[in-house]
């Protein structure tokens, strides 16, 4: 029997790595991928807890998370394309119009 703690630790690590990526990478696409990483970390915790309490609710949540992730990816990538069209770059450093 693997203690649930291990799974949670793994999830934590995954999450933090995703977060790290989101915060330091400049390429919008990579940032997105890191977001996906974080989402998966969350999924992992859901499933871990589901296993811990032995009820299926966590699975359902994970299911929904995946669905939402799909939607998010679709929109996000669409935005990236649009931005690239208008600015010719996906470098977040060059996209600073969200001021005042």
């Amino acid at each position, binding site marked *: 029997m693997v*203690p649930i703690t291990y799974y949670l630790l793994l999830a934590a690590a995954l999450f933090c790595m995703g977060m790290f990526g989101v915060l330091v990478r400049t390429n919008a696409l*990579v940032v997105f991928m890191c977001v996906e990483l974080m989402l998966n970390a969350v999924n992992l915790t859901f499933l871990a807890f589901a296993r811990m309490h032995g009820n299926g609710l966590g699975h359902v949540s994970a299911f929904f998370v995946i669905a939402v992730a799909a939607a998010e990816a679709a929109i996000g990538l669409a935005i990236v394309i649009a931005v690239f069209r208008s600015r010719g770059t996906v*470098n977040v450093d060059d996209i600073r119009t969200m001021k005042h």
Partner: protein
Amino acid sequence: MNIELVLFGVFAVMTLLSAGLVITARSPINSAMALVSTFFFLAGIYVLLWAHTVAVIQVLVYAGAIMVLFLFVIMLLNLGDAPHRGKPTVTRLLGGASAAGLLAVLAVTLGRMDAQPARLDAQGQATFGTLAAIGQSIFTTWLLPFEAVSLLLLVAMVGAVVVAKSRI
């Protein structure tokens, strides 16, 4: 020292490695590939958690659909290697540091916690994590959220089209 623990160790290490590759790889393509592998190993982990169904969905949707989408986009924009790793601005350092810090904190916290998987009776073992069980709850208790999600996906689809296309 049982087989389950071994498998977990393998999957975990591989997951972390490929995740690390995702955030370090210079070219988006590599990151994407690393991400795919991350997903595969995660699916394995899910299986260890008796979440067979989710594991399958993980492979189908993530590794299948979403990653393909990513690759399409990368090719569409044909981004080569990132010209430069983002210059280390204050906020970057801060962010990185805080991510690391968070990891530390979580590690400490979780380290203090000793959680064991629930012991399931025969009937529970038979149903836990099965497609039947999940479907049961999704299509009864969580029907409304389920429909909402379907709607969300529809909206996302339309939105994606509207945003991405220059003129419709």
